[in-house]
């Protein structure tokens, strides 16, 4: 679609020709993920994680549909249907459930790597702003789906997680409490909440699949970005998606599924919490209520607001937590640097790794029981998170002098040091050699 040299679909078999004239589905697939989609030839392994996210979405939908056949969405039946029926009596039910539990974690792992890939290589910049924003919509839908899925086994963490997370809404003045009651269908999580969470947990993955189609569609207009961030200029900068990237994705997917299988078969409860094997009990609060690991950084931001400054601390925490994701929608306009790839941005690069460390610290603080120094550490890390995106990034993009860019993708793949060009709009002399040759 995007480049003039993209090969059009040429059906060879008469049956395919017949089909193509009536319903050009093979043509669509060929242009989207086949030989008709030219991809920059210099993608590194960080570009494999989008396909991996798609694989894990598929695993979640397939295992989830079968699990739903054996699950009872009632407060009396949910815990036993999961822990007796599915785990003991359904043929290979334990495999379906553990594959689904850990599939959620792996879906988030690959998605986080995919998002940080985008952050480092400037994949959010023009002309891919909508690709980035649609990706964030997918991420928000994933979070909602994962949260509701965690409620379904109706263990202690399910129940108290639902209690805490729906409690966020009550932080808003006036409408907060009625909104929370409306969302739950009651004053506390109960049958009404469980059945609607089940209904939405079944629905949202298909909504995600729909937005994934939009995400890929929007991506195919400009085509994939690449580690240099330099635009594709000619045919030799690209390779057809099939067979080159299907082969690369294929072997890498097998390698990642290997890790997933190790966890699913040999440590299936490692990423979970023991308290969720205790049936939900509205009268007994667990000692430490923690969400699943993929929410820990946001949970840390929420808990970091401890003083009532004009607004109540809880409201500040909720605003900051939602804000920490919503600000990512503004990223294409916060980072004004014309250079996409972090490889050619010496100052940005340092702050990027600081951000990675910062999010890891937030994750640690969010998952651990609070004490005085973890609270302080979380507050520093949360403060840096906001400063990074809203203050540091705009300043860096305004004042940084980027390294010289290779003149083309092919040059960078070759021994491009000999023929370097300054990035668009930059005429400063080179500051050291580029890193991506060979």
């Amino acid at each position: 679609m995007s480049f003039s040299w993209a090969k059009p679909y040429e059906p060879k078999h008469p049956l395919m020709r017949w089909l193509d004239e009536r319903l050009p589905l093979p043509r669509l697939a060929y242009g989207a993920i086949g030989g008709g989609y030219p991809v920059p030839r210099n993608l590194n392994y960080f570009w494999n994680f989008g396909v991996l996210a798609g694989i894990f979405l598929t695993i979640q939908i397939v295992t989830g549909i079968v699990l739903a056949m054996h699950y009872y969405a009632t407060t009396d039946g949910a815990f036993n249907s999961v822990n007796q029926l599915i785990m003991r009596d359904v043929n290979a039910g334990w495999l379906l459930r553990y594959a689904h539990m850990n599939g959620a974690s792996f879906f988030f792992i690959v998605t986080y790597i995919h998002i940080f890939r985008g952050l480092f290589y400037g994949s959010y910049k023009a002309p891919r702003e909508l690709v980035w924003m649609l990706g964030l919509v997918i991420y928000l839908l994933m979070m909602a789906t994962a949260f509701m899925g965690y409620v379904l086994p109706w263990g202690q963490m399910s129940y108290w997680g639902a209690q805490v997370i729906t409690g966020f809404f009550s932080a808003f003045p006036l409408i907060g409490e009625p909104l929370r009651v409306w969302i739950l269908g009651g004053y506390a999580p109960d049958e009404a909440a469980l059945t609607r969470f089940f209904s939405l947990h079944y629905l949202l993955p298909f909504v995600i699949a729909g937005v994934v189609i939009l995400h890929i569609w929007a991506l195919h207009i400009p085509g994939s970005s690449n580690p240099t961030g330099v635009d594709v200029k000619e045919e030799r900068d690209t390779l057809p998606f099939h067979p080159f990237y299907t082969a690369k994705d294929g072997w890498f997917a097998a390698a990642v599924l290997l890790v997933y299988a190790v966890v699913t078969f040999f440590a299936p409860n490692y990423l979970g919490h023991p308290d969720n094997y205790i049936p939900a009990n509205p009268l007994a609060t667990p000692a430490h209520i923690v969400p699943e690991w993929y929410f820990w950084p946001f949970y840390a931001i929420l808990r970091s607001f401890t003083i009532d400054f004009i607004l109540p601390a809880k409201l500040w925490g909720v605003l900051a937590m939602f804000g920490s994701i919503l600000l990512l929608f503004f990223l294409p306009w916060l980072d004004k640097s014309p250079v996409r790839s972090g490889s050619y941005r010496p100052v940005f690069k340092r702050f990027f790794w600081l951000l990675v460390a910062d999010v890891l610290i937030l994750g640690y603080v969010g998952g651990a029981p609070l004490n005085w120094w973890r609270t302080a550490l979380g507050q520093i890390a949360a403060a840096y998170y906001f400063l990074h995106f809203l203050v540091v990034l705009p300043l860096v993009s305004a004042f940084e002098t980027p390294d010289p860019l290779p003149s083309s993708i092919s040059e960078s793949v070759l021994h491009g040091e000999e023929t370097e060009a300054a990035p668009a709009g930059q005429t400063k002399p080179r500051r050291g050699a580029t890193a991506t040759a060979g």
Partner: protein
Amino acid sequence: MRFILGFIGSVFAAILLFSMISNLATYYGNKPAPLASDVFHKEPKELHLASDGPFGNFKNQAQLQRGFQVYSEVCSACHSLKLVSFRDLKGIGYNDAEIKKIASDWKTQVPSINPDTGEASTRKALPSDNFPPPFANEVAARAANNNALPPDLSLITKAREGGAAYVYSLLTGWADPDTYRNEHGERLPADAKPPQGLHFNPYFANLNIAMPPPLTTDGQVSYADGTKPTVDQMAKDVAAFLAWTAEPNLGNRHAAGVPVIVFLLIAAVLAYLAYQQIWHDAKRSVRVTGALDPKNQAKSRRAKAKQGVAG
């Protein structure tokens, strides 16, 4: 817009840093005393079971049956096993006739309906029944146990940090709060001593557990296989049994995992070789000068270096 967002970000950061300073000031101004549960709580002891590790399984059926004996003679007086049915006992080596007998001899019966009058009644358990709980409901359980609720044991090794080792440590962990010293030789402060009706056990999260020591004397249970029924042995056996009730498919899972890993390993290697094969020509054809350029001919590291080709 960037100024507005920058301002919002600075406000968030300022509030966070101010909160931090105020919290630290409070902390240093009034350092809280460490909690007794932080100073005296102990991590579970080491326990080695056949179900441990990546190849663990439940083939040590003698121990599992001994553990079941301990459960049925001791623990089941108060603790239910609601998610396990009698027929599941096949997994630890009982045959159909034995299971039928265990079910019909079980001390509590299953709620039923009198077929003649329609009145509520009870009947003997069948192999297809789950283990009937010792108390009819939570109120009855609390009434009989000094207002404490004995937890269901079906999933207990998955529902506690430390798993089977925790169960074993707890069952052997009761100590006298008056003479107890922790590993630093500290004595339990008076205000941390267990209140009336609770018992000191350093493996329990808050140190004071409502359950009195259930395994008190060697030989409390008489084992048919000649194993010496010490308190330690009984605790180990019942921990092994509860590891089975929590995860009866663990052996199948491990057995299924190995071929899956081997399959994926072979698939990954073959797919990697295919990837190398497919990319082999693409990596060379990028050089615009054509296939006869000596730079394009250079494949080995040394040949590339000689031609001045990077990589």
